């Protein structure tokens, strides 16, 4: 069959055969005769509307069983469609650059290579660049902006935990006394706000812009003023280091960059959440350790031991077990207690609260004493 269309009488190696031609200017379907001469001659009714140089011919997508071609020199959408397999094969063998525009193995390798390079540089920035950026940027953020952030977080926290501020008179007086003592020892000014929120969750936290909250659940678990004092000192340490601002920059940057990597700028999918947790919690453990050191210093300056705070933490969390806690945001309670007990001098200063004041603080959330 391969020799059918070639006519031996012409004594050339030229071949010819039927094809369909679209000139790229109109949608008219033309039945043409292709002649493989010096160039590809496209003939219709004895005329030749076009001729394509072989090196300009490129393969384009076509349905199964049809070879569809375009030419770099012709209108961009001009097409030749060949059904005859032998003719198609003969033509393809003459076109040297027919697949030059396709993405070959090299192209795919380039995509893979550059993707991996992009991923590597994003990971490097997340691990090494962002902590640096957060450290440098945090002092530049105006206090007013941070306070505003804190107010937003404040409103959300109160809504989320459905928490009310506890402030019966005697309790509040004791709380203020305790906080003031710690604040002065910590070297922070009076802009620090603090309060007790009624919630069974045994926790305390610092919000950006100088707010410290203690949940009544933690008060309930505490056995003496030193335990609570250490926790408050720890939270003031976060304020002093502006850890929430730093964490915000770090978290925001991390989820944005990881989202970029996986093609979801909003940063919501499970994978992003997972990898972000791993990265940010390691950073948070470092901040927690620093806040612990700060709390130990403050307590020692007040002449009070830091060990009770560690005991309170262990009482709250229970034994946390061994193994590397890669996804937990805090260091293990056992380790924190060990750090706080180390070089803990015996109490040399006066107690921070009298036993009446301590009793009042414990019942700060009850309406009447």
């Amino acid at each position, binding site marked *: 069959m391969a020799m059918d269309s070639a006519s031996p009488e012409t004594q050339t190696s030229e071949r010819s055969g039927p094809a369909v031609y679209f000139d790229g200017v109109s*949608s008219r379907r033309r039945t043409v005769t292709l002649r493989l001469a010096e160039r590809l001659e496209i003939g219709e009714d004895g005329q030749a509307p076009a001729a394509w140089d072989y090196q300009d011919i490129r393969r384009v997508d076509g349905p*199964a069983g049809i070879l569809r071609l375009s030419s770099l020199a012709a209108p961009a*959408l001009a097409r030749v469609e060949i059904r005859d397999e032998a003719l198609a094969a003969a033509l393809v063998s003459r076109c040297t650059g027919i697949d030059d525009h396709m*993405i070959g193995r090299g192209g795919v390798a380039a995509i*893979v290579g550059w993707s991996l390079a992009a991923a590597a540089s994003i990971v490097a920035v997340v691990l090494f660049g962002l902590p640096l950026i957060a450290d440098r940027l945090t002092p530049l953020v105006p206090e007013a902006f941070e306070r505003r952030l804190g107010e937003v977080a404040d409103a959300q926290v109160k809504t989320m935990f459905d928490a009310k501020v506890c402030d019966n008179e005697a309790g509040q007086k004791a709380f203020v006394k305790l906080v003031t003592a710690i604040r002065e020892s910590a070297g922070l000014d009076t802009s620090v706000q603090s309060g007790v929120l009624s919630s069974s969750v045994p926790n305390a936290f610092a919000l950006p812009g100088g707010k410290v909250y203690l949940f009544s659940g933690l008060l309930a678990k505490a056995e003496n003023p030193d335990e609570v004092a250490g926790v408050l000192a720890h939270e003031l340490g976060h304020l002093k280091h502006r850890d929430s601002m730093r964490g915000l920059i770090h978290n925001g940057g991390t989820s944005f960059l990881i989202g*970029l990597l996986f*093609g979801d700028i909003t940063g919501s999918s499970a*994978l992003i959440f997972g990898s972000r947790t791993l990265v940010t919690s390691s950073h948070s453990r470092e901040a927690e350790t620093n806040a612990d050191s700060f709390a130990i210093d403050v307590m020692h300056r007040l002449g009070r031991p830091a060990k009770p705070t560690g005991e309170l933490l262990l009482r709250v969390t229970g034994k946390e077990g061994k*193994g590397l806690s890669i996804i937990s945001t805090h260091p293990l309670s056992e380790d924190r207690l060990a750090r706080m007990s180390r070089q803990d001098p015996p109490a040399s200063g006066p107690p921070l609260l009298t036993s009446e004041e301590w009793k009042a603080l414990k019942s700060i959330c009850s309406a009447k004493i």
Partner: protein
Amino acid sequence: MNEMTWPPQVPPSMPSVPPPMPVAFTGKRREFFDLVKRGAGLEFVTLGFYRFWLLTDIRRHLWANTLVGGDAAEYTGRGKELLIGFLVALAILVPIYVGYFLIGLEAEHLQAFASIPLVAFFYLFGQFAIYRARRYRLTRTVWRGVRFWMTGSGWNYALRASLWGLLMILTLGLILPWRNAALERYKMRHSHYGDLQGSFEGRGWDFFKRGWWLWLLTPVALYVTPVAPFIYGAYKAIEWRWWLSGIRFGGVRVESTLRKGDLIGLYWKVVGWIVVFGLVFSVYLGLAAVLVASMTDSSFTEFFTSQEFMKSIPLLVLAGLGYLVFALAMNIVIRVYLLRDLWVRVLGSINVSGLEAAANVAARGDLANALGEGFADGLDVGGF
């Protein structure tokens, strides 16, 4: 009107009007499967960056094997264009996200969670993306050496879509048929094939007549989940048929005979695969946990009763890898059934009449950029 301005070669008065031309699909299922399988592997290796090229290859396969009136279409878009569109969209979206954050901060200052209505802004943006992405795809669609193209304004469309969206909320979705008809009229009015102008003749009332009972059944589907694929499948079939039957390009008319039950099987197959993959994934997680537990020095029960296994790094890595493979397998299944098979089934229901009006159309129109596709990718809104 278009028949008057662009008379077909055969005068319309002649009685020998050619019969409606069916649409054919020549692609092999195996070939498509290999394409998405390889693509999923490359997506895995490139952490998702390959998606631009995979999407392009999928469209190239579907377009090139779709024959209308005996001539196959062609998709001339390229993965690089999508990548550039994504990068440009990124450059625009990032400052907007920062602005959104700051505005949200001010709003939250006045009232907790007050920033939620700002999400509406992103709805507007998403509709803009949908319009512009359609424009990109249409200008990359070529048939008989002439491209489709599109005019109109993405923002105008986004505004219309948002107002209709508001009505959707107020009427609990009952107005959907009229919304779709109005938006489709806008899109088709601005779509062209060469110098043939598109139009949309589907009426909201026809859609409503065929599908109102689905609206009543939707609350049932929310409670009785197994009913959902039936309802969704029937809804999609009605929508496809109504939409296709309304499409006109000059004198070319599209008609679809898709039946309500034609797509339900596809959705059930996907559900079946999800269940199978879900089971395999859970068994894998169980095996991984046992394997990791047997390598630690603590006893089995201690490992599982304490929270220790939640913190084990090898287990987390194994679970992450398993999840990735699970997600990729799901992607393959969804692409094979809900892109390729659905495409073939819908095509099989189509008749095209008046094709002689497209026999000698002059090429017109310019290419549109892929910015809309980039936005659609960044905002995660639909379209393929």
